[in-house]
């Protein structure tokens, strides 16, 4: 396991720093340029959610490994944590095509698509933790 990076997000600068940290890790691990762009886009979206809805929180970026029958799987995990208002109806937020925030394909379903694994834990009033992994192919 490599070192982890933790970036505080409470300004737009924090979003850029989180992206930068993510891109560095992704490059180090050997992700191609499309996957790099996907990972940073996912980080952007998560960090922006924190900035917009929770005011502050943090993004943690860390390399992960998983032992498999045919060797070791390596990847990058992004975790976004905040103590904001939380999400009332996760199922609705995860639904396709119904983000109020403009564009097609955006929002948390977009983050889920950009990454390989996705987990969300949130309850109204108790903050949100989202964790997502991209595996090296």
């Amino acid at each position: 396991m490599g070192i982890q990076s933790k970036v505080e997000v409470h300004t737009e600068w924090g979003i850029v720093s989180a992206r930068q940290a993510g891109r560095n890790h992704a490059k180090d691990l050997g992700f191609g340029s499309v996957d790099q762009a996907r990972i940073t886009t996912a980080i952007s979206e998560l960090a922006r959610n924190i900035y917009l809805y929770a005011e502050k929180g943090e993004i943690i970026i860390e390399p992960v490994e998983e032992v498999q029958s045919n060797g070791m799987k390596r990847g990058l995990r992004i975790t976004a944590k905040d103590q904001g208002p939380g999400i009332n109806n996760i199922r609705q937020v995860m639904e396709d095509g119904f983000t109020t925030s403009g564009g097609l394909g955006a929002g948390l379903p977009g983050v889920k698509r950009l990454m390989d694994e996705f987990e969300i834990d949130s309850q109204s009033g108790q903050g949100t933790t989202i964790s997502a992994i991209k595996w090296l192919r």
Partner: protein
Amino acid sequence: MADSYAILEDQYKKILNKYLQEKDEQGLYHAQQFSKKVMENQISPEEMVSLHLEIIEDLFPNLPAGARDSFEFLLEVMIGYGLAYREHQSLRDRQKELEAEINVAANMQQTLLPKEVPYIDSLDIGVISVPASKMSGDYYHFVKDENGCLGVAIADIIGKGVPAALCMSMIKYAMDSLPEQRLQPGALLENLNRVVEQNVAANMFITMMYGSYDPRVHHFYYSGAGHEPGFYYNAKNDSFEELYAKGLVLGVTREANFREYHKKVEVGDFVVLLSDGVTECRTDEGFIEREEITNLIRQYSHMPAQEMVNNVFYQLEKLQGFQLRDDFSLIIIRRKV
């Protein structure tokens, strides 16, 4: 069937190279064919751009460094399109599923309608009911009581589609569970009104006309709940008159009274019951007149009742460019002898 990314990359390199040498339309045609292929292989647009970039970096080693960087920038922009592209795929799958689901529901709904028209010696009955979309908010119903009297209902749920269909199934079961008394139109509507008022959402209303035909004496009794008036055809005078029944729409108030009307039916006369999808048939020139309907009916009045309703429907469907704007139901009951 799916080609690997490496195979596609190789193909792209080949056709691009050929195009750069020959610069002809055939090369661009290959590009378009390739477009279909990558999409069948679910390559997202950002992957396509990246594939292109890899290849031209190879082909043009002296590409200005800034130009190469600019594509990293473009790639970042294309990620958004990639997301939209993949959302599209999943949306399409979901839509297909939903469509299939509604087809099943529409078939189920058909089973709520009478399987056949009851046979009564002296009567000739025709009925047609066609939904505007897959599911219908029109309903009709026939019942023959122990005295050989024919009960006939025609109803229209205000609204269309799935909600109207749900409401329509309620009406069916409500009618099934009414006490099996003699079929008096007014009393029946009063009963039904109470059920609707209690069970249906406040913003759902149902209009209905209910009639009872006594073939022993050839009297037709009927009452209506805000429903589109039908027609009565008088064979002797070859004339139509309105079959109107005053009464509140079902579900508006708890207690409502429905006046009972009655007609003495002579040989050759017929009763026309319909939903407003027939009369509010809208063409480019606006709604058609009720008189145009009666003219149409008269035009086919020499035919059996079922052929009459079929023909009237075909003519009105054609008038609207084969796109119904409302559910369409038409019933004709003629005294044969």
